[in-house]
Each structure stands twice: as structure tokens, then as C-alpha cells.
């Protein structure tokens, strides 16, 4: 609880800066575009249509789309554009904020009495004078309402920037969601909502100041906003020790391992930052691009993902092959295997497996037409599932996708007979599940591998600090650490689980 609160201020600062910058950029584009759109109805229709279309894209998807886009752009100019973190968040949020700004700008300008505009022309105002002396002040109240809407949206949507590696108040929300730590989720939500409400209240003051021509109110609203932005900027830019970034994907094991890695690095004198909640596809590219310095990925994921391989080789050969591929291509470094696997396995309740006489996936094939397979959200679309099906000719009565927590509940309650599980999941031991053997070797190995960025691969001190972790975590220790975080009662934080693992 207290740890959650201590971590908030830097996140609030970064959240505020990101939102402020995005809103600023949206204003920079939206205000002139709004003026042009109100003068040229055709342009207005196109601009508003485009902004509305952008609005229909879910915020998360918009952020995700900017990653490959910036990556492609970056490769065009020789890697000068960062594809993760601040830039994609800024662009996506600014695009999102554009619609309310543009719409209210056009509405505000169009609502001006035509007689007033005729008078402005009639007294001999130039277009520029008409805009500044007449149109802007008259459209200002409606415009400010649009800016307020945009500000509230932006602050809310900025929580999503966590998924592309930009620290924000989404960090505690996503971390808490994955580890089912609701205190953390609430802390993030309340902080983000509080920020949105405070900014909205201050902008409301500015709005009423503009509407009633009270300069005092405008200053009273703007001054705290500018002070907060300046403070956040100073806070973020404050000189730091040489810092390294530890990446983590979006599940408990990754959060725990990130802290274990961070602990080693901090002892070696590095200041550590986290980029957490990274999507599976994003993480390796972030490492290759140097956006993160170190993280843990799994051999099978690299095999089918970035390496694009669909063949299955003997488990012993995979890591050597991966190391060769990395040295030849992306330049990332393989420090070593942590000592456990987190593979996709099929698991059943022990009593049910015994009753049906099932010990391996081969046995399962006979009974499958009567059984329901519960899977996590991506398993049914993954090549591993296709491989298992092909190798054992599996045909279930029904397959159904669940979020992980509900998948285990479905198995416990008998709704599902077989589930897709991760071999390092603590619930396998806690729920006394039988993991079905894979005699045909249909699933590739999923060794947990410690990977470092190209720059760090050449950094002996950095690699040396991480070396002791190689081979240090047997699968039962990892399961137990995962269970400490995942269990429903008496949850431990990822930090506590990492400390327990390091003992």
C-alpha cells in the first residue's frame, strides 16, 4: 500500500507531462486547422470526418499502431526515431485529442452571428484582424469547452501509454490488473481521475474567465496548470545516475523477474527504471532497438515470433540456434537460461486424469471428443496449439477462451476438463493439477532466457552483474514465487516474491 503510494509521484509527473504535451500538440494542429475548416466547408467535412474516424479506433490499438509505423520510419532515417515510449504516446494521444478541439473550434466559429462578421468586413478589418479581434473571442467559450473535453480524454487515455513503454499512471493499473493487486489498480485509477478532475476544474475557471471577460479567472486557472507542468518537467529532467531500463511483459512472472534483475543491477550500482506491461510482440523489438536494456523472454516465443521458424528442433539445440541468430541479426545478447521453462502445457485435475486414465496428450486424444478445452485468450490462435492438434489429432467437444484467472476457476468447478497452462504457473502445484506429457515433442521448448540489448551485450560489467542469475531458478521455485503473487488471498507484491526468489 505504502509502496504503491511512494511510486506515484514520478508517474504523476510523467503522466502530466505526456498529457500536457499531447494536448499542446493537438492545439497547435487543431486551432489553425479549425480556422481553415470553418472557412472552407469542404476541408471542414474532410478534417472532421478524419478526426471522427480516428476517434473510433480504440486507444490501445492506436498506440499499438504507432509502434510499427515509427519503427518503419525510423529504419528509413537510420534509427534516429524512438519507436517506443514518449513519441508514439504523444502522437496517438494528440490525434485522439484533435476531434473535440476541432469540432468545437468549427462549431464556435460557425455560431457567430453573420451580421457581426459582415460588420467586421464592413469596417475594413483584414482577415487576420477579424480572426483575432472578433472570431477568436466570440468562439472562445465553445472552444474552451472542447479543450476541456480533450484534456479529460487525454489524461484518461494516457494511462494506456504504459503498454508502449511510456511510464504513466497506467503502470500501477496494468501491474495491478495482472497480479490482481486491486490496491495498486485503485491507486492508479484514483490518481488519474483526480488529475483529470483537477485539470478540468482549472480549465473551467479559464472558460468562465473568457466567457465573462474576467482576466483574473483566466490567470487563476492557467497559473496552477503551468506551475504543475513546469514542476513535472523539472522533476523528470532532474539529473539521474546512469540508468538502465528493465523490460517486462504483462504477466506476474515477468514483473517478478524484472525486480529480480533490477535488484542485481542496483547492487552493481545502476539506477534502474522499468518498462512494464509490454506486449509480447513489442518486447523483443524494444530490446533490439535499445529502448530496454534487459528482459526475460522464452525460447519458443523467440523461435516462432521474431525468428519466424515453424519447425520443431530437439530442445537441446534451440538455445544455441537462438544465440547464433541473435549474433548474426539483431545483435542482442543471450546471457543464459534462468533454469526453468515456461512452456504451454495441457493440464487436468488430478482426479479427472486418474479416472479417465490420461497421463499424456496421446492418452487425451481418445477422450477429447467428450471434453471441453479451456484456453487463455491467445492460445487457440497460436502455432503451438496448431502443432499439438496436428501431432496428436486432437478434437475437443468444445473449446472456450478465458482470462487466466477464470480459466483456472473453470477447471476447478468442472466447467472445463482440460486447460492450457504455463508450466511455471504456481497454480499447477496449488491446484494439484496433472501436467500431460508431450511424448512427441510437439511443443517447442520455452526456456526462460535472459536477453540484453545490443549495446549491453558488449558491456562486460553489465553482463557480469546478471551472470549469477543464470541457472539459478528451478521451475518449482518459480512456480512458488508466481503463486505468491497470483493467489487470491494473502497476495505478495512482485518485489516481495523477487526477494524470496533471491534468498
Amino acid at each position, binding site marked *: 500500500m505504502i509502496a504503491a503510494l511512494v511510486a506515484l509521484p514520478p508517474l504523476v509527473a510523467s503522466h502530466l507531462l505526456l498529457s500536457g504535451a499531447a494536448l499542446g500538440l493537438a492545439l497547435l494542429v487543431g486551432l489553425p486547422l479549425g480556422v481553415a475548416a470553418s472557412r472552407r466547408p469542404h476541408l471542414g467535412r474532410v478534417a472532421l470526418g478524419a478526426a471522427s474516424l480516428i476517434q473510433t479506433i480504440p486507444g490501445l490499438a492506436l498506440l499499438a499502431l504507432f509502434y510499427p509505423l515509427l519503427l518503419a520510419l525510423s529504419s528509413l532515417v537510420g534509427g534516429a526515431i524512438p519507436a517506443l515510449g514518449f513519441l508514439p504516446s504523444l502522437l496517438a494521444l494528440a490525434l485522439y485529442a484533435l476531434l473535440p478541439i476541432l469540432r468545437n473550434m468549427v462549431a464556435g466559429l460557425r455560431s457567430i452571428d453573420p451580421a*457581426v462578421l*459582415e*460588420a*467586421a468586413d464592413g469596417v*475594413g478589418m483584414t482577415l487576420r484582424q477579424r480572426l483575432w479581434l472578433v472570431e477568436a473571442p466570440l468562439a472562445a467559450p465553445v472552444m474552451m469547452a472542447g479543450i476541456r473535453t480533450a484534456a479529460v480524454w487525454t489524461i484518461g487515455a494516457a494511462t494506456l501509454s504504459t503498454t508502449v513503454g511510456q511510464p504513466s499512471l497506467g503502470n500501477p493499473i496494468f501491474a495491478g490488473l495482472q497480479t490482481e493487486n486491486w490496491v495498486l489498480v485503485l491507486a492508479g485509477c484514483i490518481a488519474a481521475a483526480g488529475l483529470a478532475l483537477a485539470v478540468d476544474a482549472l480549465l473551467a475557471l479559464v472558460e468562465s474567465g473568457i466567457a465573462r*471577460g474576467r482576466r483574473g479567472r483566466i490567470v487563476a486557472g492557467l497559473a496552477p496548470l503551468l506551475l504543475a507542468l513546469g514542476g513535472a518537467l523539472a522533476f523528470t529532467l532532474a539529473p539521474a545516475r546512469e540508468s538502465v531500463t528493465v523490460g517486462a511483459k504483462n504477466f506476474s512472472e515477468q514483473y517478478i523477474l524484472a525486480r529480480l534483475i533490477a535488484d542485481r543491477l542496483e547492487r552493481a550500482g545502476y539506477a534502474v527504471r522499468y518498462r512494464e506491461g509490454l506486449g509480447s510482440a513489442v518486447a523483443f523489438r524494444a530490446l533490439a532497438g535499445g529502448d530496454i536494456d534487459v528482459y526475460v523472454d522464452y525460447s519458443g516465443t523467440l523461435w516462432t515470433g521474431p525468428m519466424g521458424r515453424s519447425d520443431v528442433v530437439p530442445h537441446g539445440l534451440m538455445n544455441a540456434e537462438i544465440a547464433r541468430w541473435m549474433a548474426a541479426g539483431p545483435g542482442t545478447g543471450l546471457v543464459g537460461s534462468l533454469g526453468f521453462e515456461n512452456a504451454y502445457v495441457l493440464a487436468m485435475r488430478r482426479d479427472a486424469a486418474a479416472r479417465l486414465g490420461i497421463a499424456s496428450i496421446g492418452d487425451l486424444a481418445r477422450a477429447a471428443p467428450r471434453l471441453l478445452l479451456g484456453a487463455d485468450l491467445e492460445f487457440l490462435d497460436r502455432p503451438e496449439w496448431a502443432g499439438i492438434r496436428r501431432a496428436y489429432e486432437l478434437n475437443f467437444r468444445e473449446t472456450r477462451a478465458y482470462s487466466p484467472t477464470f480459466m483456472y476457476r473453470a477447471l476447478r468447478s468442472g466447467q472445463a476438463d482440460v486447460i492450457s497452462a504455463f508450466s511455471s504457473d504456481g497454480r499447477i502445484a496449488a491446484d494439484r493439477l496433472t501436467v500431460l506429457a508431450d511424448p512427441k515433442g510437439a511443443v517447442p521448448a520455452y526456456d526462460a532466457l535472459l536477453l540484453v540489448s545490443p549495446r549491453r551485450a558488449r558491456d562486460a560489467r553489465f553482463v557480469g552483474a546478471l551472470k549469477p542469475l543464470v541457472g539459478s531458478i528451478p521451475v518449482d521455485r518459480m512456480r512458488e514465487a508466481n503463486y505468491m503473487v497470483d493467489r487470491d488471498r494473502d497476495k505478495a507484491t512482485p518485489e516481495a516474491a523477487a526477494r524470496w526468489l533471491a534468498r
Partner: protein
Amino acid sequence: MSGPAVSLDAVTRRFGGQAAVDGVSLEIAAGSFVALVGASGSGKSTLLRMINRLVEPDSGTVRIAGRDISAADPAMLRRGIGYVFQNIGLFPHMSVAENVAIIPRIGGKDDADVAALLDLVGLPVDYAMRRPHALSGGEQQRVGVARALAGQPGLMLMDEPFGALDPLTRDRIGASMRALHERLGLTTILVTHDMAEALLLADRVLVMARGQIVADASPRAMLSGEAGAEAAELVAVPRRQTDRLRALGA
């Protein structure tokens, strides 16, 4: 001092293929008060608005004091021409004083003498700090006239300036406009659909129909029926009303 002469040479303006003003040529003498009368859609407003380039002619030439106005910068041209119209168009976010002083302000000149201008149009000086919405319609149009006069124009263009006012106010402002015309030596062009108003205020009445000038005469000649059928029809209306009123009173 006297306002400029205005001349139009074969001026045409079409809207969507329909000629609103159709080849009009016209000489308006310096210092005269001309009324432009006609039914709605006759082209009289378009004609007026081509004189300060709120509407650009498709062809033909407009000259003010002998100079072709198409060569002038439109904004600069309008600052030297008073323009008053039916919907007034006071800037609602500015005080009366700021409204009146707008032309000197946008021209980067010294502040206008707002008190003198308000006095000129018959408004008390303490109106200066009020907002336009706190004024009656007649008062607002007086401010509109003061705003137009602040640029010290020689030429006044008035487009149905009294159209939205009650008859009493209308009569009073009409009379004071005529007085200002004399006092400041203006050239004034007044667009109105009210023949009685035109006859009572102007030195010369032009009747427009279908984009052309169909009658051009002094009020006296109009009343005596020398200006043709179209004019006679328009003059007949106030005359009939006067006769009926007289009959009622008798």
C-alpha cells in the same frame, strides 16, 4: 468639405447564372443623398455592396472620386467608407466605446473621440461603457452610425439601416441621418424598400427592378408621375395610405 462622387460603368454581378445587377451605369454627384428603392431581389443591396467591395462585380468598373476601386486594398478601402446595415452587427464582446473606436484601432490611428461621436448621433456619453446588448434597437443603430463615422468617411453606404426599428425611432433616426449628411458634407447612398422614406430623405431617388435602374428622378418629379410606370406604382402606395388616413380623420 464634400463627399466624393461615385460612378458605375456597366457593372454586372451574377449569382448562379442569374444577374442580380445587370449592366448598370450611374453617376452619383459629390455631396448628394441618393436613395435606392426597389422590391426585395431587385439587386439594390448587391449594387450598394459593390461600392465597398463586399461584393465583387463580374464585370464593369466602380470609381470613387474618379479612382477605380478594384486597384485598392479592400480593407483599406472600407475603412474610408461608412457602412451601416439593417442587422447592425455591433461586436457583442466589446463595449460601446470599443465598438465606436474600432476603425481607428484597426488602422493603427489615435483613439477616436468617442464622446464627440456619441454626441453626434444623439447618445449620452455615459453609454460608452455599456455593452451593446444593454441598448435598445434604435440606440444600437445609432452606435452603428457612430462606428461608421469614426473613420471620418466622405461616403456613407446605408443598407436598410432603419428596417428593423419601430416607426417612431425610424423617423427620428432618418431625420438625424439627413442632418448629419448636411453637417458633415457626406455623399450618402441609402438602400430602402420604403418609398416614403426615400422621398422624404433623398435628393434623388433611383428605382431598381430585375437588376436594372428603371427610374431615376428627384422626389418632386417622382411624385408628379414623370418618372415612369414602375416609379408611379411605388409612389402610389404611400399616397394611397395618406389619402386613407386623411379620410379617416375627416
